[in-house]
């Protein structure tokens, strides 16, 4: 079966991964601890959704992949919600509405979709690697934003940075700026700037989604 171009992008291109996971990455990267919580949740969703989509692939036909995949992710989010509420209420509060919104995560869905037609071990490994990559980026963003925006790291104040805060980094625009520099750094390291436009990545998901509906 011809693989989805977007899924390939997700696995091979960290910039594509960042684009798909941009929402939660930006929303919960204002500090190291929220970033850690969000990345742990994403990792859980990535691994479990890949596993479940792969396991129930007989029940989820190619035509229902979009709907089946999203429902599986929503179910996992509900489970995570209940578990966090019961055992880690602090984390539940910290994630807020973004916990629910993980059910509509492009990143999680793309990786789960890709795992449908792959070997179990391979799909698990891939989701784990994508999750760890996302975690690394989120932690870097969280550390940078917290250090520059709030003058602390993991809620531990650092006197020099506290007296030289740049408040914009704690705000929405600071999230965009930090992610821009992270992706530019990745582009620089990969030496392939601008070869993958965001449009092509999203649009290929669109075409895949249309195929799934049919």
């Amino acid at each position, binding site marked *: 079966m011809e693989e989805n171009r977007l899924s390939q992008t997700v696995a091979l291109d960290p*910039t594509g991964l*960042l*684009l*798909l*996971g*941009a*929402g939660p990455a*930006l*929303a919960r990267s204002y500090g190291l601890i929220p970033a850690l919580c969000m990345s742990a949740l994403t990792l859980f969703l990535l691994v479990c959704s890949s596993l479940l989509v792969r396991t129930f692939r007989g029940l989820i036909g190619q035509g229902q992949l*979009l*709907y089946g995949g*999203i*429902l599986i992710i*929503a*179910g996992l*989010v*509900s489970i995570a*919600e*209940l578990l966090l509420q019961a055992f880690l209420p602090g984390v539940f509060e910290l994630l807020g*509405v973004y916990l*629910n*919104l993980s*059910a*509509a*995560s*492009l990143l999680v*869905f793309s990786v789960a979709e890709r795992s449908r037609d792959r070997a179990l071990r391979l799909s698990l490994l891939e989701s784990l690697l994508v999750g760890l990559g996302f975690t690394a980026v989120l932690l870097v963003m969280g550390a940078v934003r917290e250090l520059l925006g709030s003058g602390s790291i993991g809620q531990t104040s650092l006197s020099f940075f506290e007296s030289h805060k740049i408040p*914009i980094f704690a*705000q*929405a*625009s*600071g*999230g*965009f*700026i930090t*992610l*821009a*520099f992270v*992706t*530019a*750094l990745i*582009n*620089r390291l990969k030496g392939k*700037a*601008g*070869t*993958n*436009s*965001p*449009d092509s*990545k*999203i*649009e290929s*998901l*669109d075409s895949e*989604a*249309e195929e*799934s*509906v*049919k």
Partner: protein
Amino acid sequence: MSFRDILLLILSGVFVNNYALTRFIGVSHVLGFSGQTGKAAGMGLAVAFVLQLVSIITWPVQVFVLDKLGIEYMQTLIFVAIILVVVYLVDRIFSKAAGNDEGSFFPLIALNAAVLAAAVDNVSGGYGFLQAQLAALGVGLGFLLAMLLFSGLRCRIDYAHVPKSFQGLPINLLTAAIVAMALGAFI
């Protein structure tokens, strides 16, 4: 509800509480779909339309079913199921009306977090039915505004000289930062 309240609810969704640019909700769609103004406007309108329909359904479901039965913990799953049904039906209807089976970008809206966020926010914000619909209208218009603003800026970027490492996503994110700063003036 006075005219002032109505205006406040809508404008706060459009400017102050813009999902994509101040809360990063649905930002992937804004970054990825704003290359062409026509497509950006289409996507923005489609999201606003689906968001409104979903909001009309989810509010009564929450109040008369989930709250009554004490199964609020099923909210995410039920809301996502409603979104999927709405997206499927809207896609079918529009495809038939357009006379083609090629589909549209409606299925992608199921993965737009703004739709789910609006549904969740409407019930957690304690809004009445009418207030919830006005808030959803504001969110939808805010998303459309973000798409159009961003697509306009990207058209300009296409003709600008951008350092190699910043081409593509990084420059788009920096553009989003500037738009977010502009919207920050309303907060």
